[in-house]
């Protein structure tokens, strides 16, 4: 008993040093050397200014930008969360109803893709489905004075297919797509 208690103390110290300190620091060192960009969150800079991470959605509400999925936490990466609303919760039903009404006004006659009116799990899902991108094309083309086909071509270029052809789902990274829009000549082209 006494000896095991002594070992319990010493073992906690020894394994903390090995597994709790040496291991993560070694992995950090290797990661920073081997994959520096990925290890630091795939940060995106425009003209030398940090504008975000390609893995984290940020708010876009202007007519000339693709909008990401709704966020329950205002796209705040220090507070990652979903809405936690259950399927029969009236707050969920009402929120979706009003979001659907707003989106249908902008693109009448087309059913609204589900991911555009549901909050993501992280609160900053970087992607939308190709369906959700297609739904927004008319608005963006109009706001930017581009042809719908030109916008559609840009969406196509930024559509990531399933990994290795079968893993996950096809998706469109909203931040990268919007930055590409800004680089495209048109009446809203900037920066």
């Amino acid at each position, binding site marked *: 008993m006494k000896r095991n208690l002594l070992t319990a103390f010493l073992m906690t110290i020894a394994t903390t040093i090995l597994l709790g300190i040496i291991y993560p620091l070694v992995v950090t060192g290797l990661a920073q050397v081997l994959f520096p960009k990925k290890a630091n969150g795939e940060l995106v800079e425009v003209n030398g200014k940090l504008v975000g991470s390609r893995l984290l959605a940020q708010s876009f509400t202007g007519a000339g930008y693709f909008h990401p999925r709704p966020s329950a936490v205002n796209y705040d990466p220090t507070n*990652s969360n979903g809405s936690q609303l259950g399927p029969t919760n009236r707050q969920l039903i009402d929120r979706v109803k009003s979001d659907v009404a707003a989106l249908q006004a902008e693109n009448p006659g087309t059913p609204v893709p589900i991911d555009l009116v549901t909050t993501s799990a992280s609160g900053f899902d970087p992607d939308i489905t190709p369906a959700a991108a297609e739904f927004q094309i008319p608005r963006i083309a109009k706001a930017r004075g581009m042809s719908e086909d030109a916008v559609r071509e840009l969406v196509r270029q930024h559509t990531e297919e399933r990994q290795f052809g079968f893993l996950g789902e096809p998706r469109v990274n909203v931040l990268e797509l919007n930055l590409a829009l800004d680089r495209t000549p048109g009446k809203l082209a900037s920066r």
Partner: protein
Amino acid sequence: MTLNGWLQILFFLALVFLVTKPMGVYMARVFNREKTFMDPVMRPIERLIYRLTAVDENHEMRWTEYAIAMLLFSAVSMIVLYAIQRLQGVLPFNPQKFAGVTPTHLAFNTAASFTTNTNWQAYSGEATMSYFTQMAGLAFHNFISGATGIALAIAFIRGIARRQMKTIGNFWVDMVRSCLWVLLPVSIVGALVLVSQGVIQNLRPYDKAVLIEPMQVQKTGPDGKPMVGSDGKPSMNTVTEQTIAQGPVASQEIIKEFGTNGGGFFNANSAHPFENPTPLTNLIEMLAIFTVGAGLTYTLGRMTGSQRHGWAVWAAMAILFMAGCVVAYWAEARGNPLLAGVDQRVSASQSGGNMEGKEVRFGMANSTLFATVTTDASCGAINGWHDSYTPLGGLVPLANMMMSEVIFGGVGSGLYGMLIDVVLAVFIAGLMVGRTPEYLGKKIEAYDVKMAMLFVLVFPLVILTFAAISSVRTFGTAGISNPGPHGFTQILYAFVSGAANNGSAFGGLTVNTLWYDTAIGFDMLLGRFFMMIPMLAIAGNLAQKKYVPPSSGTFPVTTPLFTVLLIGVILIVGALTFFPAVSLGPLLEHLLMAAGKTF
């Protein structure tokens, strides 16, 4: 549901099948202390640890000493984790200058949570824990609580395999070998693979990005509610920056899955793009969750000399796993019938279904597969919020945990939980033919069955008691965020998850309160240690028994018939115990949802 979705699910099951044998053979060699390819690296470290910690590696323990060593190690390391949390303000690696974790009941809850391999999180990682606490406190416990589980499973296997012996191994040696030979090498390689896909790994302070479009955000008052101006309109704030939380995530992510711990570095866990950025990382994380549990069935077969028994157990796990996948995938892909005007159908350009609380890159197949895997095992990582699942979709994780996570299961705990069910199955088969039951040459007698029943009964007793109290007292019901039957499910899920040492949640429930932190804290401790002790008692008792050669009256534990009987026992023990509670929660909500009722 799509063909591609099913292909992904079956591909995953095929990978689990493929890792079972190599992992099982390797672990059998590690714990029999035979030569492995890791010896040149790990053996010197192992010797050094024993020298520093006063361990005699040739000392053999009876089950009682084994249990005491395990309990002492858990208690000491739990106290240290409590202290680290409270003192993190003065410890290094704290670029965000987080103060010590308060209130004390949260620090207690978290210490109990990580010590018991539950990783229930009543806090939000990116807003509470320093990098030091994450690495040396939380990720460290991911290793040792997993290693403790593996050690105990190995001790149980020895109990079956040994004949007329009083001892079942040495806890320290089994625990250290689990860490050094099994968990650490895979974690180093796995962490780097995750980083290559975009899981972050750094010690930098949080970055500040300047938003391309400034964002209007409604202010929140001191009470946490959205603020409204004197004119009745919401009062808004213009936000121009996004603060990007950073940290040593990959090193924690891999062991969180491989040790079936499940505590996310961030609040959003494996739904967070920094923890799980691509479909490949999602696959690796799911596979990591099942690898040890699947491998241990092969280790069982190898160490007891009945490989076909190992596969019969594996088959029972695989069948129950697929059953969960089918129900969850079907329920979520159907979507939410209460939502009007939206397109929830699957097409070439969207995966459709109930996307509330899910991520686009995972869609329906990978979200529901992850939910099934994480609750089959005692992991509890999530890549979508179970609280927002449809009633039947959310029932699958709940039911998986109610079967006490024996479907591949937590590292170690899944196997010994399953073997308790095997003891019961053999006992029931014995009753049916009127002979003393035998299991792999050991007579199963009154003492063993009593201990097995204790193991089985502690679990619902703890859960139902706490859930009942919480459902009728205001300190319990105050935490509910989704009214109606869903609110009861939130409470039930919390205590099932705690006692099963899973750690996933119906996350809307407000749990950082004195009642929930304390109650779930004890729920987790009782669910872990009060089940481990009777299990070790059976192991010790089996080890000292004589070997009885199989006769014509022995119920064979290697046949499909055995697999079916085992599944039957699991369903009866798990499902029937909790059926009344389940019918008040998810089943009722499902019927009301179908009738168009909202709350």
